[in-house]
Structure formats: C-alpha cells, structure tokens
C-alpha cells in the first residue's frame, strides 16, 4: 500500500484524509491514553458532570415522589413508554450502525466506532432503568418475567412486557459484549501506560500526580493479560465481527418485534404496515444523530482533530442526510397512504396534526426531524462540526416527537378505556425524562474519564496503512550474555511485514520452534506465517445460539404447559408464536456470551503478561512488532536462531533489536 498521501486513491476520496498525516502508532497511544491517565479531568468535564448529577438528583426526587406518594395508584403514562422507546431506538440505531460498519470493513469507522458502541450500551442501560425504576411497587417485575405470574393465574408469556424485558436484557448483553471485545486491546495499552507512568514517577522523572496503583490494577484486571499476539489478534477480529453480526440481527429482530407488537395492537392509528421500517429508520437516524453530536463535542474538547478528521464529519453528515431522506420517504408514504386508504380515525389524526391540537407534535417532527438534515446537501455544511452537532440533536428531538405521536396520541382515542388526562404529559414525566438524560450523560462522562473513547488499536491500523512508517532507531543484533543458559530470544521489528518474514524464515526450516509474535495491531500476515491450528469461533457461536434459543423456548413452553392452571395443549398451540421472538433474542445473547468466553479461554486469558524488558529492547504495543522464541535445546538452539535472524536481509526480516533472556 502506498504511503504517499497524494497518490493514494482512498485518501483522495472527498479530498480529505481519513487520518492526519502526522499521526503515528506511538502518538495515537499517547494521545488517547493521555486523556484517561491525565491527573485530573479538564474543567469542562467537571462542569458537565455536575450538570448531569443535578439532573440525576431531579430523577431521584421524582422516584421518591413516585414511591412515597403514588405507590397505591397505577402509573398510566404513554409518555414514559415513548421515552423508553426513544432510548431503546438510540441504542438500537447506534448498535446497528457500528455493527454494519464493522462488518462492511469501512475504514473510517475506526475513529468513531467506540463512541457509537458506547452510545448503544449506555442508551440500553438508561432504557432499562427508565423501564424499571418508575414503576416502584411490589411485584413490578412480574409482567417482565415469563416464569412468574402476577397473581399466579396466567403467566404472561405472550405479554409484550415480557418481550420487551427479554429483548432489552439481550440488547444490553450484546452491546456490552461488542463494547468489551472492542475495548480489550485498548485496555492492555492503558494497563501498560498506567504501569509505565507509575514507574516513571517512582524514578522521579515523571511530572504531576501519577495514576494510582489501584487504577493500574483495575486496568490490568480488565485487560485479562492481553499480550497482542498474532493468534490473539486473529481471534479478536473473528470474535468482534461475529458479535457485530449477532448485534445487527438482534436489532432487526427486536425492532421488527416491537413494531409488530405496536401495529398489531388495538389502538387506532398504528396499523400502518410501513411502521416497522419507519421505526427502524427513526432509530438509526436518532442513533447516528446523537453519536454524531457527541463525536463533534468530544473531538473539540479533547483536540482529536488528527484522529477524527473533517472526512469523518463529511461522512457522518452524508449518513444523516441519507437517513433523513429515508425518514422523509416513510412519513410521506404513511401520510399519503392514510389519506388515500385510511379509516376515518387515522385520517382524523392526520388532520389534527396539520391544524389541530396535535399540530405542535407534527410540526416538531417536520421542523426538527425532517427539514434540518436537508442542510447537508451543501458541501460546506457537511464540514461544519457545529451544524452536525445541532442537526444531530434536532433529529433526536424529532424522533422523540415521532414516538409521542405514535404512542401517546393513539392512546388518547375513545377506543382505549383510559382516563382523559392519563396521557397528558405532567411535571413528573418531564423530570423523569430529564433524569434519564442526566444518567446517560453521567455514565458517558465517566466512560470518557476512565476508558479510551477512540479505538487505539483500530486507529493504529489506519496510521500504519495510510501514513509513512515511523523512524525507529536500529539496535545492533549482537550476542549478549552468551555464557548463561538462555530461556527465550526476543526480537523487535519495525513492521508486520518484517516480522512475518522472520517467522517464515524460522519456521520454514524447523517447525519445532515455539514462536510467539506480538504487535500493536492485528497481524494477518504473521498469523498466516505461524499457521496455527484454529477452530472458527463462529461454529461455537452457532451451536451456543441454537442451544440458548431452544432452551429458552423450551422453558417458555414448559411454563405454558405446567405453570398455568389452564395449561393445556390448546393453550400451548395458541401461545407458542409469542415465544419465538424472545427466544431468538436470547439465542443471539447466548451466542455473544459464548463468543466472549471462547475468546478468553482459547487465548488462555486471564493470564499475567510476560513482556521481555531490558535496556535497548522496545516493548511491543507501542510501535514495535515483537517475536519471542522459546529455547529448549540449550545454547546451540539459541545461537542458531540468533544467527538466522541476524542473517536475514535488512528489508526482509532482520530484527531492529534482539535480546536473550537468561533462565
């Protein structure tokens, strides 16, 4: 791949670079870990965190009000459901976008995919709290658990509440799995950075307050001994992509299930067959909008313009424009279909939305959700961070209004037997929603403070692919400590290509060597040279998914048969279709967990890392690729390896540094 930024066709796309020319493997690690390992966060962080905590306090007050004052009365508020659905939509949209970008191998995702994954996970968590906490009464979990009945009469297996609870739990599991697998190599980089900072401080050459030992230990614990070996990287790629595929499937299943659940329900105004597409497009649009707004803010506050370039802004705005056009299509098609073929109630809702009591909701959808994205037809607008943040926030507001129109308005019909004021937004709804935003922001700020918000490993891949190689000082490969027994020989290389050539040269003559190759990025060339015997992770994922899905289905069927006093074959025949969607969701979550466990077990994690250290020998994980050869036959073997490595051509496998490790 050419290193010339002018000649490379991919870099000429849209006339912007995908990564700044001066970004290097070591520089990226320093920049991103510097945000986390800084002695104290910037002032902006404290201000934002205080604001978020203030909103959480409001949330807590509303909870106390619910528990203490209204525990005996039922909570009937479609606005709460709209808010819950909005958060779920953001989570689903972000998860789908990050999964599709990862599966498609889109290069520019590298710098922004972590933010999308974080939004997905936090959105799902906030939706979970939103769904559970305001209920605040004994037995509030009953509708959500299919194996418990509210009064022991009819287990609510077919209840949408059970679907939602299962789906949301599975969504959190898959989001967390995708997020953690992507984070794993970066946690190792953080661990190394924290330990080095602590050591430098102990030697007296560090400035400021060092990261605490506890923090280094936590990073070490979370990184589970990741070393960055070629085999680990290969499994990591496979696991990451497999979980992304499961995540994309989960979003489609859950969105389709929720839409069918809504469209098939009694209230009028929901029976449109385009509703599943509208909801999916709206979810992705709100997810991309929120993610885009956060990307712009994070880029500006942490000065990440070299990693998140104007090219990223351009692509994000194009995505928002295309999704906005798709949303426009859905709204126009639904409205036209209603006016042409809809019943009187549906046409009445459209008329009220144009010039009636619902006009403020309809026009909010148009003004916030559909019109602002059209500004991205202008090339200059697509490069403006301020506009992207503004439009991203506006489309999220528009999507919220869309949920209100769908859920609240349809429940305000005469066909639904609820009190007239049951679905009128009250102060409690507003403070609860504000509290949920505070919870999201507080969690996001904590993530920003404690974990790398830009994927170090993936942006390093970009730097290696697009930028000129870093200058590395060559270290003479001469014999040292030759009079003591040798346990290992370590060799450092400037590029993956050199490391792969060295591995091929060593294994080409004698496959009995035990070699271990490590590096800061995935190394498919080195993995191919090592030729280890590997079983694909996806097979484990498939088997586990099937087992989990069928197991959950069997649990539900058994419950329908035996737990219900009305448990008969007829009941089973009528109810089994309701179990299918939750079972698919559980299957996908089980597959995610199985992939995670397989990744860790096959990589023999957790373990203690055994880095070769020493004067003149650079650590891998910064800008070097490292080869370790285990010595079994004493000095002859060690010298044979050392001579063979030193005898390789300078541009085809000769290490830039070598070190012998005594027994």
């Amino acid at each position: 791949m050419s290193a010339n930024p002018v000649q490379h066709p991919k870099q000429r796309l849209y006339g912007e670079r995908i990564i700044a020319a001066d970004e290097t493997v070591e520089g990226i690690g320093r920049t991103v870990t510097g945000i986390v390992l800084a002695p104290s966060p910037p002032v902006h962080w404290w201000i934002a965190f205080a604001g978020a905590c203030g909103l959480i306090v409001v949330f807590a007050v509303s909870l106390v009000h619910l528990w203490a004052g209204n525990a005996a009365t039922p909570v009937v508020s479609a606005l709460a459901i709209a808010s819950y659905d909005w958060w779920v939509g953001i989570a689903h949209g972000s998860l789908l976008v990050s999964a599709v970008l990862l599966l498609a191998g889109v290069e520019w995702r590298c710098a922004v995919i972590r933010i999308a994954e974080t939004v997905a996970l936090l959105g799902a968590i906030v939706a979970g709290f939103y769904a559970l906490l305001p209920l605040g009464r004994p037995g509030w979990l009953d509708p959500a658990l299919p194996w418990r009945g509210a009064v022991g009469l009819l287990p609510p297996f077919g209840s949408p509440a059970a679907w939602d609870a299962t789906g949301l739990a599975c969504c959190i599991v898959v989001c967390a799995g995708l997020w953690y697998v992507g984070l794993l190599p970066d946690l190792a980089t953080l661990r190394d950075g924290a330990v080095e900072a602590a050591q430098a401080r102990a030697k007296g050459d560090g400035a400021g307050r060092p990261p605490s030992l506890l923090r280094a230990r936590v990073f070490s614990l979370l990184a589970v001994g990741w070393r960055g070996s070629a085999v680990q990287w290969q499994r990591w790629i496979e696991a990451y992509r497999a979980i992304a595929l499961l995540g994309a499937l989960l979003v489609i299943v859950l969105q389709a299930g929720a839409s069918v659940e809504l469209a098939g329900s009694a209230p009028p105004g929901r029976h449109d067959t385009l509703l599943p597409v509208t909801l999916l497009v709206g979810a992705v649009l709100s997810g991309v909008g929120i993610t885009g707004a956060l990307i712009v803010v994070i880029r500006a506050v942490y000065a990440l313009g070299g990693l998140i370039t104007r090219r990223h802004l351009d692509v994000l705005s194009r995505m928002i424009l295309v999704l906005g056009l798709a949303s426009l299509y859905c709204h126009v098609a639904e409205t036209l279909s209603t006016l042409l073929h809809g019943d009187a109630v549906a046409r009445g809702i459209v008329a009220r939305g144009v010039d009636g009591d619902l006009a403020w909701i309809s026009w909010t959808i148009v003004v916030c959700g559909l019109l602002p994205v059209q500004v991205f037809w202008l090339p200059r607008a697509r490069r403006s961070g301020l506009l992207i943040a503004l439009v991203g926030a506006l489309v999220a507001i528009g999507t919220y209004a869309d949920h209100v129109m769908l859920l609240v308005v349809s429940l305000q019909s005469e066909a639904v037997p609820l009190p007239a004021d049951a679905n009128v937004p009250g102060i409690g709804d507003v403070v609860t929603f504000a509290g949920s935003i505070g919870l999201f922001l507080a969690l996001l700020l904590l993530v920003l403070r404690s974990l790398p918000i830009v994927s170090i490993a993936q942006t390093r891949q970009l730097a290696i692919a697009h930028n000129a190689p870093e200058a590395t000082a060559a270290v003479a490969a001469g014999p040292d400590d030759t009079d003591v027994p040798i346990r290992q020989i370590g060799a450092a290389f400037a590029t993956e290509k050199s490391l792969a050539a060295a591995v091929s040269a060593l294994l080409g003559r004698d496959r009995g060597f035990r070699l271990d190759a490590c590096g800061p990025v995935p190394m498919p060339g080195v993995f191919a040279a090592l030729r280890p015997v590997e079983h694909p992770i996806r097979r484990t994922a498939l088997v586990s998914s099937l087992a989990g899905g069928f197991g959950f289905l069997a649990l539900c069927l058994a419950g329908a048969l035996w737990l219900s006093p009305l448990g008969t074959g007829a009941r089973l025949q009528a109810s089994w279709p309701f179990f299918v969607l939750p079972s698919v969701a559980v299957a996908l979550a089980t597959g995610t967990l199985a992939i995670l466990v397989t990744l860790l077990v096959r990589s023999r994690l957790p373990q203690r890392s055994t880095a070769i250290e020493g004067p003149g020998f650079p650590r891998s994980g910064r800008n070097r690729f490292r080869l370790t050869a285990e010595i079994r036959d004493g000095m002859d073997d060690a010298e044979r390896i050392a001579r063979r490595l030193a005898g390789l051509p300078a541009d085809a496998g000769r290490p830039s540094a070598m070190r012998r490790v005594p027994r």
Partner: protein
Amino acid sequence: MSPDAHRRSLAGARVRAVTALPRTARAFALDPRRRAAVGLGIGAAALSLAFLLGGWRGGMVSYLPAWLCLLALPAGALPVAIMVERADAWRPQPETALLETLRWLLTLMPVAACLVLPILFALPVLYPWAAGAPQPSPLAAIWFTTPFVLARVCIAFTVWIALAILFARRGGEPWGKAGRIDDGRAVLGLGLHMLFGSLMAGDLVMAASAQFSSSLSGLLLMAGWSSLALSAAILVAPPDVGPSRRRLDRLTPLAILLAIWAAMHIVQALILRPTDLTEAAAWYAARGNAGGRTLAVFAGAVVVLAAATTLKPGEYRARLVAALALAVQMLALAWLVTPSLRGTFTITLVDTLAFVGVAGLAIGLQPLARRFFPGLVVAGAAPAPPHH
C-alpha cells in the same frame, strides 16, 4: 505437406463442412439479425392466442403480471447497479460482468414503457376505481382518476428512462473517478426510483384490489423487482476473468435482497392478519389457497437456501439459486395481482401465453428502443486496471 499444415487443412475443411450445413430452425431464430423479427412474431402470436382463449378481460388479467415481470428487469436492476457502482467508488474494484449485465437490463426500460400502453387502455378492466367502484376517501376520489394516473405513469416512465440512460453508461470507473466521487448521482437515482417505484406500486399493482392497500407495498415490490433483476443477471452473466474474478461472491447481495423481501412479507402478514381489518383478511384469503401456500413454502425454502449457500459460494450454486429465486419472484408478482382480479391464486395457460408474448415483444422491440435512445447502448468493458 507437413503434419501441421495437414492438420490445419483438415480443420479448415471441417469448418467449411459445418458452415455448409443447412440452418436449423433454432439457428435461424437465434441469429442476431433475425432475433428481433422472430421475437416479435412469437410474441404477437402468443398474445393473440392468449386473448383468443381468455377474452379481452382474461387476456389483460394475464398480461398485467407478465408485464410486471418485464418491468422488474430494468426497474429492479436500477438500484442494484447504483449500489454496486457506489460500493466500487468506496473501495475501487475492477468492473464485473454482473454489473455489465445489470446495465444491459436497464436498456429494457423503454420497452417496458412501450408495453404499458395496453394496460393504460384497459384501466376499467383491471382497476376497480376506473370501473366506478366507490373510493375510500375524498383524496382517493381525486387521486385515482384516469388523467392523474396517466400523468403519473407518463412522468414515472420518463424519469425511469432518463435514469436508465444515466446509469447504463459506464459512469462508475472508480479508479478513474476517485477524488471526484459524485454521491449526488446515486442519491438522486435512488430517491427518484423509490418515489416513482412506490407510486407505480400503488397505481398499477395494489390498485387492482378494490379496498385493500398497504403502505409497505412500494418497498416490498421494489425489493421483489431487485431480487428478480439480480437473479436474472446472475443467471445470464458470464463468469468474470482477470482481476474481477476476486469478486465472485454474487450470491450474498441476492441472499440479502431475498431476506429483506421475505422479512417485509412476514411483517406485513403479522401486522395485518391479527387485526380486525376485513379488507386485509379478504386480501390474504384470496391468496391463501393451496397454490398460495405452496408458493409461500417454496419461497421460504429458496430464501433459506440462498442464505445457506453464501456459506459455501460457487458459480453453479449461485446460478441454481438465482434460477429458483427468479421463478419465485415471477410467481410472487402474479400472486400480488391476479387474486385481486380472479378471486384466487392460479397460474393458467393464458398466463403462460401472456408471459411468452410479453417476452417475445420485448426481444423484438429492444433494437428499436436502442435506436430511439442511443444513450442506452452499453459500452464494452475497459481493460481492468491494477488492483489496489
């Protein structure tokens, strides 16, 4: 005479002997110079027989799904060609025979526009609104009137022909265009196609039913059209050679399209069937006979087969799945319209004759369409550039 010279003279004599053989009927029909005339003759004969057997109404009821299959080739190829072109722009790739075939299918758009004329003449026979059936809403009473429908159909085909001319040309050339990528062309093409595809789905397909309509029908029909066009392209496209061979995975996009199409069908059925919408129940009841259920099972099996075959792709497997998918999509188009006009889903001899007739007319009219629209002539593939 040397052995080589002797072998050459023998080969020459064999060639002369072959060319001197009397031409068979098949060879006569396949001769490119006579293909158009033969197609026109067969098409006219088959359609005449169809109208003779089925009468004016029965013939038109069979003509409509046959014409929809023809329209599906260029209208379905359009978004797929745009998406492939865009994907090539993101990641520069050599041109493939599949993309060339999709572009060739676009040249059928003027033919489809020409063959829509009988349907426009037979509006009262095919569409209840044109026969004076009551309209469900005030807007529908204006929307479904002959002048408005004719205007929409004319505009739709004008736009579609313009888009076909735009995208039938080799405009991709990502390696040549890198640095001046024009996403506007793709967004414009897809947007206009979605708009007019949805309108035509309502005007020419769903309107065949008196009461029932589904707002998903536009996307559903466009997904079916694209599956049909891609299946046909996979079936007839020659294997790639050179650097393009790296992109042999033709089945994955077809499997994705089929999955989307099937998912939309399932979602629509799940939404409509449990509700008390009598029109929807009647619409599904007309299609729920043994033939309809068999088609549903067959279609589901093909979708699963397509997904499973992507795990172990191969040229012949891809062609087999494409042939099955093509059959499913053609039957599905008939499933959409004929039960609304006949009350049940059946495939008759008249349907088959109408299909042969429309296919023959399309073959016969294509050279004429190319003469009137020179922009539709697809240029030959350029030499493949070095792979990045």
